[in-house]
């Protein structure tokens, strides 16, 4: 088991390395370097930088060195928590990102919980009551969830709630708490605003998971051991929950590893529509303004987030499914 965890950990590290290279490539992609952009910005406000100063800055950031050296320098600084300076905001990148990263984590995680919380009972219900009215209704809603991209869904909900209920469902805080420091009241306010974006984000994944859960459980329910359990006189609930559901959960957990990157990715675009204070809107603005250290840092952090999420879901998979644990031990 330790070997399995170690292997997954190595894969997570490799993924992280690949993401860091990608993030650094994104930083390097626009023509010119950081100093060029910095000088252009200064001269647009009237001040100027001498050639010697520019050269000094290039040496400070190692911009005169080859790509690989620059990459290593950047990674070295990032590990120490220094993501560089955001040109757009004139502040350190870590300060700009601040709370936004945690709000992204919060929303993605809430969406994950919603996905689990909905898909599990509905999946079980749809399998046990196959072809019932409820089964059809859920399948139908699931289909909508699959076919409508989540930013469109957010847009439609935004319009409907505005048009017929006169509500603005955007944002994550009421206006009085938006800039206020964290307090209990603010957290309470947040819990009221969180469910809707989480639900919008979760719908497509939930639809997928319901399908998987339903199909797996249907396969399990036809197996002889279920008949045996019934013949022994177990109650119906116990028959279903104790064995077939547990066996059907296995692919459920493995899908989770792919679900988390998907949710994090989705949160970016949904945040823009619903104006949520996640890293999404900052990333878009940074990319448009070519504020590359900020953009690179966000891509890197989002990557880190999904790598950690995937690793945790691997651990969860092992915890749920004894077959994997034993297979690994052999």
């Amino acid at each position, binding site marked *: 088991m330790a070997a399995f965890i170690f292997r997954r950990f190595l894969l997570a590290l490799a*993924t992280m390395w690949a993401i860091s290279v*990608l993030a650094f490539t994104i930083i390097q992609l626009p023509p010119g370097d950081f100093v060029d952009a910095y000088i252009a910005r200064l001269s647009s406000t009237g001040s100027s930088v001498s050639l010697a100063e520019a050269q000094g800055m290039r040496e400070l950031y190692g911009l005169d060195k080859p790509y690989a050296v620059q990459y290593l320098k950047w990674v070295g600084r990032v590990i120490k928590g220094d993501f560089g300076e955001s040109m757009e905001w004139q502040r350190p990148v870590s300060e700009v990102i601040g709370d936004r990263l945690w709000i992204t984590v919060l929303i993605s995680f809430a969406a994950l919980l919603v996905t689990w919380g909905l898909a599990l009972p509905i999946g079980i219900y749809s399998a046990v009551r196959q072809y019932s009215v409820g089964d059809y209704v859920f399948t139908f809603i699931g289909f909508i969830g699959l*076919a409508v991209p989540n930013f469109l869904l957010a847009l439609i909900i935004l319009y409907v709630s505005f048009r017929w209920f006169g509500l603005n469902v955007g944002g994550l805080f009421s206006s009085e708490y938006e800039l206020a420091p964290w307090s209990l009241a603010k957290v309470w306010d947040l819990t009221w605003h969180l469910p809707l974006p989480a639900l919008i984000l979760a719908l497509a994944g939930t639809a997928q998971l319901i399908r998987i859960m339903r199909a797996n459980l249907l396969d399990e329910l036809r197996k002889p051991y279920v008949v045996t359990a019934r013949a022994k006189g177990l109650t119906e609930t116990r028959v279903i929950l104790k064995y077939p559901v547990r066996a059907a959960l296995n692919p459920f957990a493995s899908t989770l590893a792919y679900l988390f990157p998907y949710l994090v990715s989705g949160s970016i675009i949904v945040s823009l529509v619903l104006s949520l204070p996640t890293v999404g809107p900052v990333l878009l603005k940074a990319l*448009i303004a070519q504020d590359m250290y900020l953009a690179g840092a966000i891509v890197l952090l989002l990557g880190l987030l999904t790598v950690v999420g995937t690793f945790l879901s691997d651990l969860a998979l092992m915890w749920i499914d004894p077959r994997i644990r034993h297979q690994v031990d052999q």
Partner: protein
Amino acid sequence: MTVIANMFGRWFGRKAPQSGAIGEDRIAVATQSQLIWWRFKKHKLAVLSLVVVALFYLLALFADFLAYTDPESSDSRRGYIPPQSICWFDSDGAFRPYVHGLKGVRDMKTFKLVYTVDPNRKVYIKFFGEGYAYNLFGLIPTKRHLLSYDSTVPENGLFLLGTDVQGRDLWSRLMVASRVSLLIGLAGVTISLFLGVLFGGISGLYGGAIDTAIQRVIELVRSIPTIPLWMGLAAALPNTWSSIQVYFAITLIISLIGWTDLARVVRGRFLSLREEDFVVAADLMGASRMRIIFRHMLPSFTSHIIAAVSLALPAMIISETSLSFLGLGLRPPAISWGILLQDAQNIQTLAIAPWLLLAAVPVIIVILAFNFLGDGLRDAADPYG
């Protein structure tokens, strides 16, 4: 998806499998493609989706013919005109479709001339009349359009789905956008297919260390959050690029992720077919590796590939739409579904011009249709199962 398709199959009167001597005789002598077609036909919803998808691609082919005003021509005085409904019969009861014309009103706040709908004027619609000039299929210069109206009078206008802020007709733009978005899906899937067959094939054929390495790479690609990565790559495209260059670059970017699913399908097929008797037999008879792959293995999994492709297409379309919606995908003057939806991005605009959301309708229909179609194809792909 199978489950849902079955359910709809039941609704649409899907019949139980044929039994009896006649049916069995027919099945016994049928070719594989006949078997696949019969199986596919039973799946009524998939057949319906095939028709829908075919209609959409036909629409894409005749986009300019179906549009009636130049999608680029703008007139700020005609901004945000709501959709007009067609009155099919004239006041004397004769079949002569018309819409209400426009009326110039001076806005007393800005002193600008603004057009609004005038219920007293009629603009008659002609079928197969002449409109703006275009090249049919990009080759044949013509002026024929399905619908046209007398555009010499400035107060005339036809806005079946309303106009955007710049007074551009949404219907005409939607037609042209459909062509762009549907083609970018096809182009993206072609590149993905190439990568998928290449890597999946190598992985399944050689196995061992190469297989493990490719599988790890696929796992790695799948665990990277796609949207931020796409955004980063798309934003790095130089501003000086023409919209054609951007188009190809965006296609490439979205297909960089899509190939992993296809590679998995191809690999899975290769692995299972490698052990089949007919492949072993061909090998023992001294057939070359290339002959085994292309003559014996490929025909038995092309159907699987087609199914996987039709399931990958909607993902491509969503990707392009999302990127363009964010303003990082295709750039104006290119028109795509995402670019049209970009206009409907915030609640202030939606409150004034809710019809801009209509651009979402074809997106949803096409994605649904491709999903059902891919589902039916996947069921039919293995007619012996």
